[in-house]
C-alpha cells in the first residue's frame, strides 16, 4: 500500500486553495542501478481531485514530474467543512485515494 498523501485545502477569499504532496518514486525508466540495469519506469500517470461529486482538476503526468509530486491549484464553489478527495493511479495500476476537509 503506497504511503498516504498530505493534503491541505484552505477556503480563502478568492477560492479554495488545494495543496497536495504525494509519496511516489516517479521512476523515469532512464536511470540505471548500480549494476548497470535500467530501472523500469514507474510513475503516477493520472491524478483526479473531486469536490461534492464534481471533478475540480484532472491531470495526466509523465515521468518528468518530480519524485514525491507536489500539486497546487485553486477552485471556486467550495466552503469550510466540505470534503475533497484526491486519487492517483500509477503505471503499475497501483492507486491511492485520500480525503481532506476544507479548513
Amino acid at each position, binding site marked *: 500500500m503506497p504511503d498516504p498523501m498530505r493534503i491541505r485545502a484552505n477556503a480563502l477569499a478568492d477560492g479554495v486553495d488545494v495543496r497536495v504532496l504525494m509519496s511516489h518514486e516517479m521512476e523515469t525508466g532512464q536511470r540505471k542501478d548500480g549494476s548497470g540495469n535500467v530501472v523500469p519506469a514507474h510513475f503516477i500517470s493520472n491524478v483526479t481531485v473531486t469536490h461534492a461529486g464534481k471533478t*475540480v482538476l484532472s*491531470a*495526466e503526468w509523465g*515521468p518528468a514530474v*518530480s519524485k514525491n509530486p507536489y500539486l497546487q*491549484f485553486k477552485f471556486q464553489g467550495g466552503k469550510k467543512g466540505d470534503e475533497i478527495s484526491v486519487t492517483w493511479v500509477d*503505471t503499475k495500476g497501483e492507486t491511492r485515494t485520500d480525503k481532506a476537509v476544507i479548513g
Partner: protein
Amino acid sequence: MSTSRREFVKLSGTFGVLAAIGVLTEEQALAQQAAWNKAAFETRNLADTLKALGGAGVTESKAIAITVPDIAENGAVVPVAVTSRIPGTQNVYILVEKNPNMLAAAFAIPQGTDPGVSTRIKMGQTSNVLAVVKSNAQFYVASKEVKVTLGGCGG
C-alpha cells in the same frame, strides 16, 4: 440477434491488428483505462506534441504567466507555476524543451477551477520550459529559460 459472420470478421480483424502492432499490451490497457495520452508523452518536439494533443498551430501569448527559477541548482526538483489569463482555458500543459520527452504534465481545468497550477518537475539540462494553454481548440504558448546546474536524470 447474433453477430453476423461479416461483422465478426471485421471485429476480430481490428483487434488482431491492434494486438499485432502492440497497442493492447496489459500495461497500456491499464493506462488507457485511466485515459493517459501515451502518444503525447512520447513526443520529442513541440510540433509533434501539439499534434498528439489535437492541435495544429500555436500562438505565443503574453496572457500566460510562467513562474520558474532562473537558475535551478537541482534539476530533479524544479518548481513550475503556470497561470493563464486566456478566457475559457481548458487545458494547461507543461513542457521541457530539452528533456527526452517534452511533455511533463497535462492538466484539465473544468469550469469553476482557476486556470493555474503549480507543481515540480525534473529537468535534465538547461532548457526552455514551455507552458501551453488550450482554449476553444486553440493553443497558446509562453516559455522561459531555466539554467540547470545539476541534471535531474542521473538520479
